[in-house]
């Protein structure tokens, strides 16, 4: 079976698939690729099932070498990616020759590359998934130099012939995300909801897969006191006692005690994965039902 060797993991290299729903009642969240759409696209490009495990590469610096020819596709963040020295086009199936280095420079747009390799990463699954959950410390450990990752068998589907997938790179300017009212909207003043949905927020550098923190006006509560811990979902906007919002990410805690003012719409969620520190964010209010 073929394999790929990690020469350098870069800032953070994680094995991720579509995650492990169904275990939240035991304290284990879904995890999975933060930019889920990017992983599915990369998998389709190389003829994998959408659910195959790939790599999520934060920022630049990752260097990987396969021991046999392998089809790859890079989606998500855009930046200079080279295979044996030759540029790799984003969103395009590319044949990576055996023993040639696949190198990722720091992304110019977005934050997290998604890399699919034909056959998928075939490390043993944990609770039905090959995803790393950085909060629970579950699943394949973050990659380290020297790791060798087995690839799965050749999929039944050929590498599709589609030569162009029109997908824009992640935006650099203000990003608009749709937001729906959360369960504890009534813990906040009307002006807090107003501020959430009209202010220009900025992404804090203290953001990760657990949560994307936003910097901006303080969101005021109408009541003090503690909320008994309750279930959380990726995309929930928790407001801490100092009034600052955090959008929970792919590795959201399963329960939390801060009130949730709003929830990012599913269709906007993947964009969170590509927000860069300092980038402006606008939250557009949406009604729950059309």
């Amino acid at each position, binding site marked *: 079976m073929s394999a790929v060797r990690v020469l350098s993991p870069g800032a953070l290299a994680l094995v991720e698939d579509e995650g492990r729903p169904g275990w939240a009642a035991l*304290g284990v969240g879904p995890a999975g690729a933060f930019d889920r759409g990017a992983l599915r696209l990369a998998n389709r490009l190389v003829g994998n099932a959408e659910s195959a495990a790939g790599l999520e590469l934060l920022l630049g610096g990752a260097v990987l070498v396969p021991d046999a020819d392998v089809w790859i596709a890079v989606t998500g963040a855009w930046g200079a990616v080279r295979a044996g020295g030759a540029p790799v086009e984003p969103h395009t199936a590319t044949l990576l020759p055996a023993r040639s280095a696949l190198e990722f420079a720091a992304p110019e747009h977005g934050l997290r590359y998604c890399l699919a390799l034909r056959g998928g990463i075939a490390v043993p699954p944990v609770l039905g998934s090959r995803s790393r959950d950085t909060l629970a410390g579950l699943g394949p450990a973050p990659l380290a130099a020297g790791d060798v990752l087995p690839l799965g068998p050749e999929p039944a589907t050929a590498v599709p012939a589609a030569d162009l997938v029109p997908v824009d790179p992640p935006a650099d300017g203000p990003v608009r995300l749709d937001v729906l009212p959360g*369960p504890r909207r009534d813990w906040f003043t009307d002006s807090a909801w107003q501020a959430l949905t009209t202010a220009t927020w900025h992404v804090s550098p203290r953001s990760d897969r657990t949560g994307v923190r936003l910097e901006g006006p303080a969101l005021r509560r109408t009541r003090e006191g503690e909320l*008994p*811990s309750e*279930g959380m979902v990726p995309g929930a906007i928790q407001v801490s006692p100092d009034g600052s919002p955090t959008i929970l990410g792919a590795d959201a805690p399963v329960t939390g005690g801060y009130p949730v003012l709003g929830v990012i*719409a*599913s269709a906007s969620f993947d964009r969170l994965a590509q927000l860069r520190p300092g980038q402006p964010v606008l939250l557009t209010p949406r009604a729950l039902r059309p």
Partner: protein
Amino acid sequence: MRILPFGDSAVLAEFSSLDEVRGAARALTSAPPPGVLDVVPAARTVLVRIRPAELPLAAAERWIREVAQAPPPDDAAGEVVVLPVRYDGPDLADTARLLGIEAGELVRRHTAAEWECAFSGFAPGFAYLVSPGLDLAVPRLPTSRPRVPAGAVAVAGEFSGVYPRESPGGWRLLGTTDAVLWDETRTAPALLPPGARVRFEALP
């Protein structure tokens, strides 16, 4: 019961007591319709995560309203998990003092009671154990410990719990067990899933 919105792929059902939550969680997990991803009980709520393409939000709400107002489970079901404990925790004496009883009496009450896992959280396999009728309620420590060892048996609020692995923690430590609370390679990774019944047994 109140149903609260939680985005386009989840709803939160809120109850007035933990007993109602236990009943609802039992009812909602027994035969969920296709499209239900997770049913997550907590102290006063049950979160239901769905795949809206399979189960639209409105249908999920209807289902929750139909089945969630179930009586609390009768306590006769299931085996009792017995956890052997060395009651040598650093907070045993202080906790007894807070309750106005001797340390030995605290151990006696903790071991005499039958506990049930009401819900999980904080870490994989961490069970919030309740024992209706038992009054051992104490506040959390004013300052959390940066490191609580795996197997630490602790109390806080109306709950008792066992730390599945070393982690920070603010509960009051009464003792230690060698039981393995969490092992993701087991078919049932959590020793104490919601609904599990538990007794603590004092080791000499």
